[in-house]
């Protein structure tokens, strides 16, 4: 292919809920396209329809339905352990041939919590029997074992929490909540509940150039001043040679502030002289940081976004081919 690029990827860290990687030899348009797809166009599962049978809680039906929709739903493929891509396992409900709903396009959840019955079950002591308790996402019973709500983001969060899952509503004596919720596959463009990420961002890799010749005209105090003025600590004085060098972790902490530039223009003998140190954005290297909501593992989100982009480009290629053949 005439003008294809060959980007490179280097993983910095992977945790179930977060991935950081370095993407290089490609353009901002590709990095931005991936970011936009991760936020808006990666398909996930979320509760879309709720049928209420009983609701005597303090929150009204639509309030509870709204909260249910925002609960992240995790699909675990048969051969793996974490949240995976649901794109192949389910059909979008608009494309499904069934009349209304079927296991191919939907997952049903049931929730039935009655305050009085639960108090009896748990054998709560006499003096605590009127204290309210929380209905959480752990009370949702799924019809498909591979699909469960994502109760917590990580083991630490689970350990630190007092509840068993994401709280939906608190109920007190005499109150009863019974509903059936149907989860469907969708994308964030339709509603933000389908977004798999909490944050998906990238920043530019810094290119720090030290003009050795110009720096040698500075006094040691001036060099120290330049090192100290950077709030992101990207420069150091080398102990042996006394010269300004770029610090080890500069690429991680760089924030491209103006302090260095302002201090340098005060130090220069003439305004049109070259800068001693320049910090620029790289135009082809990006540091991505993607944090999920618990519905999908972070690396699955990235892979899914790449597949969505590939399918989109193939689809467009086919449409262009059809346009060409039809003689425009």
């Amino acid at each position, binding site marked *: 292919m005439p003008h294809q690029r060959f980007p490179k990827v280097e993983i910095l860290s992977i945790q179930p809920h977060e991935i950081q990687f370095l993407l290089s030899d490609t353009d901002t348009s590709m990095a931005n396209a991936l970011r936009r797809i991760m936020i808006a166009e990666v398909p996930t599962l979320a509760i879309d329809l709720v049928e209420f049978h009983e609701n005597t809680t303090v929150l009204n039906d639509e309030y509870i339905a709204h909260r249910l929709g925002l609960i992240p739903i995790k699909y675990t493929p048969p051969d793996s352990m974490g949240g995976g891509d649901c794109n192949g396992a389910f059909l979008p409900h608009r494309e499904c041939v069934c009349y209304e709903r079927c296991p191919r396009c939907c997952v049903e959840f049931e929730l039935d919590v009655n305050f009085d019955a639960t108090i009896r079950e748990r054998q709560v002591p006499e003096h605590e029997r009127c204290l309210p308790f929380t209905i959480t996402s752990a009370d949702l019973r799924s019809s498909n074992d591979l699909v469960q709500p994502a109760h917590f983001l990580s083991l630490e969060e689970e350990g630190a929490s007092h509840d068993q899952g994401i709280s939906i509503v608190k109920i007190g004596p005499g109150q009863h909540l019974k509903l059936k919720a149907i989860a469907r596959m969708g994308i964030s463009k339709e509603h933000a509940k389908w977004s798999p990420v909490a944050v998906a961002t990238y920043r530019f890799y810094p290119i720090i150039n030290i003009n050795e010749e110009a720096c040698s005209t500075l006094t040691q105090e001036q060099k120290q001043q330049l090192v100290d003025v950077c709030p992101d600590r990207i420069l150091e004085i080398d102990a042996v040679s006394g010269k300004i060098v770029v610090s080890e972790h500069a690429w991680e902490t760089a924030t491209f502030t103006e302090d260095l530039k302002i201090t340098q223009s005060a130090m220069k003998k003439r305004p049109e002289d070259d800068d001693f140190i320049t910090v620029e954005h790289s135009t082809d290297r990006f540091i991505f940081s993607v944090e999920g909501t618990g519905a999908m593992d972070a690396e699955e989100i990235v892979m899914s976004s790449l597949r969505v982009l590939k399918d989109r480009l193939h689809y467009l290629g086919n449409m262009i081919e059809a346009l060409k053949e039809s003689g*425009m």
Partner: protein
Amino acid sequence: MNAPERALSFLLDEDSNEQKITYSADTKVSNAGTFTINKEDHTVANLLRMQLLRDPSVRFVGYIHPHPLIHRIDLKIQTASSTVAPIDVLQSATEDLAGETDHLITQMTEAINKWKKENQSGIGQFN
């Protein structure tokens, strides 16, 4: 009350027989035309535009996303000579981008597997 259906921002309107992509040649400028791609936004448009800028047989390329509530983009392409039509350039740009994405998929899969092998051989077991 007047809000349009959210799904219309990415699904083609079947009732009006909306086409994904249409072309209209420019009457005043030679070797130029505008492609109207429906139900797309900056994600794909900017990607195509930057790829087309890298093609030396393209003299001019630009895109417009007229309004956030209007779900189409107009991509205007002018080629440098009449031997290459705008649609040919667009087709090769799309193929190049698809190839780049394919390459990225393999690179990403390899990088993830390599990192997992080197760092946390047990991480999969504690999910």
